[in-house]
């Protein structure tokens, strides 16, 4: 399982990459592997305000539906429109072209408080 060290993770299997006050959000390699082939992704429009912990969309595989939970609070700057026609990017590139949202992060400290790669790994291994 790939877990880049520069990302922060949640127990709901999302990741955040912080660049200034801009955060990129996706689901982890573990999550995409558990879901199987992703066939549909539903995401909020730019301008939507997210509050940490709220559900903000869904990822659907052939067999399962999975809610997405905002890892931090912030305003949606952009959603990954490429996923409309190529949802499989979530499987093939969960930390790259399969990203979900870009957010203007309200409190960067919320990101720091998320799990680091080692903590997330031990959570998934004990699951």
């Amino acid at each position, binding site marked *: 399982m790939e877990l880049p060290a520069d990302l922060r993770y949640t127990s709901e299997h999302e990741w955040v990459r912080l660049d200034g006050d801009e955060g990129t959000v996706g689901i982890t390699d573990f999550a995409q592997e558990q879901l*199987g*082939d992703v*066939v*549909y992704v*539903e995401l909020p429009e730019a301008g939507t305000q997210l509050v940490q912990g709220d559900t903000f969309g*869904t990822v659907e595989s*052939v*067999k399962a*539906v999975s809610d997405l939970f905002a890892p931090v609070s912030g305003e949606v700057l952009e959603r990954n429109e490429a996923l409309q026609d190529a949802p*499989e990017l979530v499987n093939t590139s969960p930390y790259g072209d399969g990203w979900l949202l870009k957010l203007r992060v309200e409190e960067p400290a919320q990101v720091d408080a998320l799990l680091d790669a080692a903590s997330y790994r031990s959570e998934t291994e004990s699951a």
Partner: protein
Amino acid sequence: MTRALLQLALRDRHAARGARFAPFAGWAMPVQYGGILEEHAAVRNGVGVFDVSHLGRVWVRGEGAGAAVRSVSTYDVTQLEPGRAHYSLYCTQDGGIADDVFVYHLEAERWLVVHNAANAAADYARLAAAKQGAVEEVTRATVMLAVQGPEARATLGAVLGAEVCDLELHDCRELSWGGGAVIFARTGYTGEDGGECITDRKRAGPLWDALVEAGAAPVGLGARDTLRLEAALPLHGNDIDTDRHPYEAGLGWAVTLQDTAPFTGREALVRIKERPREQRLGHLRALERGVPRAGYPVYNSAGEAISRLTSGAYSPTLRLGIGMAYLPRALTEPGTRLMVDVRGRSLPMEVVRRPFYKRAEA
């Protein structure tokens, strides 16, 4: 439900291919190997092999065996020549569908019936009562492999012998293979060409290996479900059950009433057939992105809840959502637009003719 799951004879071979297992009807079944989309495509474009050994298999032998099977099933299987198979139904006294089954007339007094796994125990009891002392359950003693896809016939010919290539749809034969017997039939549950093989546990591993070596990709239950739904083949427990009768399910062709032979449910079915049909199993195709799934509510154009999807999935071949639901007669015309509630979002769908997918004629 603390009963241990039944394990497939070929479990180790599935595990070696990367299978993920999940409980299904009391069995630990391979749901997927590499991925459902890839496996689905293998069956539509090439050839796949499924281990369907969870299906109940029962021999009925001896004089009057065919009549005994007929006495509990809706189709007049006594008309089947030796070497022919047919789809049939078990009904309740009220005409509800207790199971859908395949009946194979192997030889003059030798019949094989294949049941859904969830109903296998009740189905065996039904046959055992119909022909006491002549019914043998062989589910655990045998293995059943389905080989499906446009290249299935070539694969089956290479493994089982060229004679299987000449068989017609629903022909069945007992073949010699590997020092034993393989029951082979040109049947399946995917909408593709192909066949199904039943053999004893001893020959199961070599047969699986030979089919995989000849090019068949292992396919799990996940793709089996999307494949059968694209072909609009009903799944018992989802699309048909004891609350539904064959006529509203579009399965009247599997009920023979012209003869006078009594069978379980006959009186009810005679009455039901004469009644106007209030509902019919309809086939829906999504007009926008979204995945309709079993249980989701269906609404008419006035926003009134009229039904629920009995099955629903993303169709890998059509690349859109498809589903089935019992609909009021007036709403079964192709082109009728309905809405499906996908977890709070309205997904427009339209009624289409079945099947969703039909293979090109060879």
